[in-house]
C-alpha cells in the first residue's frame, strides 16, 4: 500500500515537473543545432522588447506585493485583535469575496477603472491586486496567534500604533509576511486576463505573460524558461518558510 502511494505520488510529481524540464531542455536547441545558448543570445541581444516586458512584470509584481502587504497588515490586525460591532459580519463578507473567482469581479473592476480613467495605465493592473481579501485573511490568521498580553504590554509602553506594529506585531509574524509576499508575487507575476482586458489599447505596458505567445518560434522556449525562473528561485529559497507558515497558522 505504501509502495503504491509512493508510486502514485511520484507519477504526479513527474506530471507536474515534466513541462518545466521539457521547456528548459528545448530552450537549449536553436535551429536544430547541438545544445547551445544561442536562443538566449537572440532573446537578450537581438530582441529588447522581451526585456521591456520582463521589467513590466517585475514592476507590477513587486509594487502589488509591497502595497498589498502594507494595506493588509493593519486590516488583519483589526480583524484579529480589535473588537468592534459588525466585525464578524465584515469578516464573512471578506471570506465570501475571497471565495469568488477573479472572473466574477473582472467586470466591476473594469467599470470602476473606466470611471476613474485608469484603463490603459499601469495602475489598472496594480490597484485591483493591491486590495486582496486573501491577504487580509492570511494575516488575520497569523496575528490571532500573538498573545493578547504582548499587545497589551506594548500598548502600555507606547501609545503609538506604528511602534506597536514595529515592535510587537511584525517581529512575531515575519514568516507569515514572507509567505504572503511570495504568494502575492506569484499571483501578480502570472496575470494575463487582467492585462488583456484592462489594457486594450496600450500594449507597451503589457506584462511578460501577455506577450509570451507572440515570441518568435526559435526563442519561445528560452523566453518561457526565463519567465519561470524567478518564481522557481523564490520557491527554492523561501519554500521552507512558506510551508511552515501554512502549517503554523493553519491555512
Amino acid at each position, binding site marked *: 500500500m505504501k509502495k503504491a502511494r509512493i508510486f502514485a505520488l511520484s507519477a504526479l510529481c513527474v506530471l507536474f515537473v515534466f513541462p518545466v524540464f521539457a521547456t528548459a531542455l528545448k530552450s537549449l536547441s536553436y535551429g536544430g543545432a547541438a545544445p547551445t545558448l544561442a536562443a538566449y543570445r537572440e532573446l*537578450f541581444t*537581438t530582441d529588447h522588447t522581451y526585456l521591456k516586458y520582463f521589467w513590466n512584470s517585475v514592476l507590477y509584481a513587486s509594487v502589488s506585493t509591497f502595497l498589498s502587504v502594507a494595506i493588509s497588515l493593519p486590516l488583519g490586525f483589526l480583524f484579529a485583535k480589535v473588537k468592534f460591532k459588525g466585525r464578524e459580519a465584515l469578516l464573512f463578507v471578506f471570506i465570501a469575496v475571497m471565495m469568488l473567482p477573479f472572473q466574477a469581479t473582472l467586470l466591476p473592476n473594469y467599470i470602476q477603472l473606466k470611471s476613474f480613467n485608469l484603463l490603459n495605465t499601469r495602475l489598472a493592473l496594480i490597484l485591483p491586486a493591491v486590495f486582496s481579501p486573501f491577504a487580509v485573511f492570511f494575516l488575520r490568521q497569523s496575528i490571532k496567534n500573538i498573545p493578547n498580553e504582548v499587545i497589551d504590554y506594548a500598548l502600555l509602553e507606547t501609545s503609538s500604533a506604528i511602534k506597536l506594529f514595529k515592535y510587537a506585531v511584525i517581529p512575531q509574524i515575519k514568516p507569515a509576511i514572507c509567505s504572503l509576499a511570495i504568494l502575492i508575487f506569484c499571483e501578480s507575476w502570472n496575470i494575463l486576463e487582467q492585462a488583456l482586458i484592462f489594457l486594450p489599447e496600450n500594449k507597451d505596458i503589457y506584462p511578460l505573460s501577455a506577450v509570451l505567445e507572440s515570441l518568435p518560434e526559435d526563442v519561445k522556449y528560452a523566453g518561457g524558461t526565463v519567465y519561470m525562473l524567478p518564481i522557481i528561485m523564490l520557491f527554492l529559497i523561501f519554500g521552507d518558510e512558506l510551508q511552515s507558515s501554512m502549517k503554523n497558522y493553519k491555512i
Partner: protein
Amino acid sequence: MMKKAATVVFALFWAAMIFFTAFGDRLYYAFKPRVEVGEVINFDGGAYLPKSAVFEESDGDYHTLSCVTFSVGQIVFALYRLESRLGDYT
C-alpha cells in the same frame, strides 16, 4: 546547501537581466559589420548597390538588408549572399 545555491543563482539571474537591459543593444551591434550605403537604385526588378555596400568573406560576397521582426521600432539587418555580380560598366 540548496538554498545557498538557489540564492547565488537568483542573484546572478538578476545581474544578467540588468546587464542585458543596459548593454544588450551595444552587444548586438558590436558583432555586426558596419555598412555604409551611399544610395540604392532599384531598376528593372533589381537593386543596384554601391560597391561599399558589399563586403567580401572567404566564402563569398555579402550585403545586408534591413528587415522588421516582431520587435516594433527596431530594425534588424539580415545578411544576404550575392549569387552574381554585374560588371562595372561605368
